[in-house]
């Protein structure tokens, strides 16, 4: 996969959605440890709505439109912190972009970097705060670093970076979300949102490698 066209975008986002829906129990368990145990439910619901949206989306060839629609469907169906945060990941980097029929890897990386920026602007979380930013930020860095090597390489690198990010959250005290009231008691547990980010990048990397 050299560039991402409308079909690819739909396929890749479908793969993300299915991976998250399959991981619903895992995400819920992870969130239950130090949060309120609903992360899997909210994410799966948002992904289902986004899948429904994709199924009805008219093919206008604009790749950004697919990401924006996917994010918007999440935003208007999920609620919760993750609704705004995770929808921004797809929506905020894609909205108001000029229509494109084929997205190359560097543009994709730029889109995701904008999403991350917006997430940090809204949520105020930085690296080390035990949130999904701890997975997304290194994943975006990796994408930028490997953008010239094409989708498969770039996304696998991002997936690995996200995995390391997830692992890094275990040692952290939370500064955002429900886990922050736990203070030191949160140490030893990974962040639920970061876990979702990793699952998403794994799905993207798999998709890119097989398409």
């Amino acid at each position: 996969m050299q560039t991402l066209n409308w079909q690819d975008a739909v396929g890749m986002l479908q793969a993300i959605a299915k991976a998250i829906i399959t991981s619903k129990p895992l995400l819920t368990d992870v969130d239950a440890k130090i949060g309120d145990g609903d992360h899997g439910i909210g994410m799966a619901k948002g992904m289902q709505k986004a899948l429904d949206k994709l199924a009805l989306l008219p093919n206008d060839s604009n790749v950004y439109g697919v990401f924006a629609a996917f994010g918007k469907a999440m935003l208007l169906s999920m609620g919760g912190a993750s609704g705004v945060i995770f929808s921004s990941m797809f929506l905020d980097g894609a909205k108001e972009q000029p229509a494109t029929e084929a997205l190359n890897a560097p543009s994709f990386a730029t889109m995701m970097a904008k999403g991350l920026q917006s997430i940090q602007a809204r949520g105020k979380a930085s690296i080390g705060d035990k949130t999904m930013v701890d997975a997304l930020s290194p994943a975006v860095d990796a994408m930028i670093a490997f953008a010239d090597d094409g989708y498969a390489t770039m996304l696998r690198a991002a997936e690995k970076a996200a995995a390391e990010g997830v692992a890094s959250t275990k040692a952290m005290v939370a500064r955002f979300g429900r886990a922050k009231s736990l203070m030191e008691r949160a140490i030893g547990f990974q962040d639920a949102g970061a876990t979702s980010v990793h699952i998403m990048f794994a799905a993207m990397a798999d998709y890119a490698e097989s398409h």
Partner: protein
Amino acid sequence: MYKKIINDPDHVVEELLEGFIAAHARYYEPVPGVNGVLLRQRRISKVTLVVGGGSGHEPMFAGFVGRGLADAAACGNVFASPDPGTICEVATAAHGGQGILFLYGNYAGDNLNFDLAEEMLGEEGIATAHVRVNDDCASAPKDRMDDRRGIAGDLFAIKIAGAACDAGLPLAQVKAVTEQALANLRSIGLATAPGRIPGAASPTFTLDADEIEYGLGIHGEPGIQRSKLASADALTTRLYAQIVADMPLSAGDEVCVLVNGLGSTPAMELYIVYRKLKAMLETDGVRIHGAEIGSYCTSMEMGGFSISLLKLDAQLKRYYDAPCYSPYYAKEGL
């Protein structure tokens, strides 16, 4: 899967609201297409009070839409903030033209979604403001008030804000009065048993047979200590001490008290707690002006309770005393 009297875990909120609005149709109407509750006979020449948050805390939030209370509630999924689209629809339907105060618990999810909704409403020229309830003094130290969660004290915040709206104050002043209520409001709770989210395979936490979670949040967020169960009097003494350490009370002060059940704890136990709380307040020379005892802000069958104290000043007292009516909170005029 825990026993729940539901149909489909993915549709509990829609079905709950359908039943809720139908049961209280004299008072409420739906907001088409989204999960919200709208007061039928809302006044238009006043600031509109919109509350909301995750579902699963029934009767909070929708149960406190009423005369002298909130004008509308935006309801999220179980334990998840409503999305910005829902908040906007509900607020727009309720808006009486004098601006909207959003009142909700201080949680990352609620903050993000309500902020986005305010942005969207602002683009349409609607004046908005918000107050975030942060009464749980177990959820962060006093120097990090902005990090504290909102729990059952929401009830008092809604009562005061609703009365301030009814008094005809402009938006900025309604906000200021509500903030004053929060400055004088503290809560803390403990759990004896976890909540059970529809569709979730396991409870929100687990406790040994003699354990309690002290200072926990209303979504089952772990508290500040896992302790042993003790007598009602001992537990109440401990919670009261923690509140007054955070918000000192002096002889001669007047307070309103809320003993809130978290879901499965019988009213019997809440009254036994109140009995002790009252004795301690009396010992300290503090006068109890009003007391609410009940399961007003619940957590899906969670066992346990919280205590809230609202320290009154002349203004807060006047607004507290204003009559109000909802199926869950009715106050006759004094």
